[in-house]
């Protein structure tokens, strides 16, 4: 018998995240090796938001993270032990170690050097030595440098200059200069500017409206006009709105109902939309969205760093964002 989708099934989702580390004999597990580090970060953050941090073994996790250290690349983390260092997995590694209070395991100087080596003359960051560039990698770099307390080593003007180039006539931001506005890129650009205390670069009213327009009649949010709604946009759109303090502009009850309806009530986890297969990515971003909407029983999630608010506050990094007030259950 399935549970109903009218509430968030916290114990079931905690069990789901916990079980992910156990089913390694299927092909999907190996095809997603390039996201392994990120997957652990998504799982851990989801558990922290649900107040079930201890569902995953701390020592094993730290050991895995450290086994992904890529000494040859000069000081970053790969997604998996035999993968090359990448800025996305490096950020995830740092976030995990901070959440587990184990940052002392890392040679911070070398990580900083690795990150800074990826900045391009235009100001954007590459993901790795191969050279894929976009604003997501730029956000990874700025976020990581801030968490490591080394933002002062970044060329801020050059970085902000690239973000400015990605701004479009509709008020949104794209992945690279010239590209269409997209909610995920709006998030990374907005969060980057928040970390750099440069939100004055944004026409906040106009961008807030573009974000509010992402809500469709089902209650869910899409990433671009005329595209399908998807649970992960509950984070990309909402976090940007929280940074701009505009979350109240959309219908939160309808969005909560949409996210809850995408839960797998038998095995746990949340899918991109109702009826689809759950995965850890959408589970994390669905729960993150619910946290920003003040859903009862969840911990506060910092939308700028996408980490537990408590952790960010303790580090003295909190920016002036606002979600909806936490509801009593």
């Amino acid at each position: 018998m399935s549970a109903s989708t009218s509430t968030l099934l916290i114990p079931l989702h905690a069990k789901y995240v916990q079980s992910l580390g156990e089913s390694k004999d299927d092909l999907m597990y190996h095809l997603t090796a390039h996201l392994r580090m990120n997957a652990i970060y998504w799982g851990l953050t989801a558990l922290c938001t649900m107040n079930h941090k201890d569902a995953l073994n701390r020592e094993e996790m730290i050991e895995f993270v450290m086994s992904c250290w890529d000494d040859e690349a000069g000081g970053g983390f790969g997604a998996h032990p035999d993968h090359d260092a990448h800025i996305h997995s490096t950020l995830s590694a740092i976030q995990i170690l901070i959440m587990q209070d184990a940052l002392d395991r890392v040679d911070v100087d070398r990580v900083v050097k690795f990150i800074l080596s990826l900045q391009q003359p235009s100001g954007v960051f590459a993901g790795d030595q191969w050279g894929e560039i976009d604003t997501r990698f730029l956000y990874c770099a700025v976020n990581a440098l801030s968490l490591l307390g080394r933002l002062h080593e970044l060329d801020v003007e050059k970085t902000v200059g690239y973000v400015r180039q990605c701004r479009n006539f509709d008020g949104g931001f794209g992945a690279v200069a010239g590209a269409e506005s997209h909610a995920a890129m709006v998030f990374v650009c907005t969060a980057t500017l928040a970390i750099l205390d440069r939100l004055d670069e944004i026409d906040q009213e106009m961008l807030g409206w573009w974000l509010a327009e992402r809500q469709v009649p089902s209650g869910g949010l899409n990433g671009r006009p005329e595209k399908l709604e998807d649970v992960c946009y509950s984070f990309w759109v909402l976090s940007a709105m929280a940074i701009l303090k505009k979350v109240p502009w959309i219908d939160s009850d309808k969005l909560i109902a949409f996210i809850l309806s995408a839960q797998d009530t038998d095995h746990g986890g949340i899918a991109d939309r109702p009826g689809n297969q759950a995965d850890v990515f959408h589970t994390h971003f669905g729960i993150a969205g619910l946290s920003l909407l003040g859903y009862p029983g969840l911990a506060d999630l910092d939308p700028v760093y996408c980490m537990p608010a408590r952790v960010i506050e303790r580090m003295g990094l909190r920016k002036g964002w606002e979600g909806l007030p936490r509801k009593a259950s």
Partner: protein
Amino acid sequence: MSAESEDVPLYAERPEWSDVVPVPQYQGVDALAPINYSAEYQDATDYFRGIIRMGETSPRVLKLTRDIINMNPAHYSAWQYRYKTLIAIGADLTEELRQMDDFALTNMKTYQVWHHRRLLLTALRSRDAAAGELAFTARVLAADAKNYHTWSYRQWLLAHFNDEERLWAGERAWVEDLLEKDVRNNSAWHHRFFVVWSSGVREGDEDREAVGRRELAFAKEKIALAPNNPSAWNYLRGVLEHTKTPLSALTTFVQLYTVSSPSIAPEVMDLDNPVPTEGAQLPCVNALEFQADIYEQEGGTQITKAVEIWKSLANEYDTMRKKYWEYRIKEGLQTTHT
């Protein structure tokens, strides 16, 4: 997963690979230790790690990386090493592009596919190749007209090679064609803005005032076709903003879309103000918003009219964003009092 079936031997069984020592996948941490997936995938990636360890760049590496990419299109180390090998052995890069065409079509959502082509084009430095790529991306976009990576790649090609005659010349007509097929395609609207306004002045577009008039007429015509289309309204506003034209210049047009029932088509067609297509759902939210913005900009007593519209949006036409409209009402009233 792999296209070839069981009759293809594993790398471990091929004599021509016997000089490579396969490196098994890391299995250090127990709780996270894998195995039991496709034997082909494991075999190929073991030999790939062996090749990396040797630092070999040779034609057989191209076969190996292609096998891995076929099984796992997102394997970025395989892509990276493949590119390095192509350059090292002086391979024919145009041939590589053709080899990858079908693969790119079936794996268009994979970022690496497009980054690989971008690296190849950068190395080729050929406008012929760039023109060929425009044709290729057109094929891909015909299959999925909103594919983000393909669009960014096309925009990169145009800006990077920046050839007016060979690349830019057909661009506006091509994107117009896409909008003809789907007037709600936001990617195509964005691209039109990119071509006309934000990447230099196209040949024949030197008279910017004329271009502004042409683009407003274009957007209005598309709005008439499908009034509830935020992409077209955004474009319209984008043009006004870019050409520093006040919103009020479009009052007559907008009012055709703020009424609940369509006005009877005038006997003489007003080309500047096309009427909504028959059966369109009116009033149109974007038009109401536009009209309220006009009133707000005019200020003074006009604010009352703006507030009326915002109230109707909050309570009737766009209730999902009620809080937003209430915010506009509050802000609007505050400016009149200060």
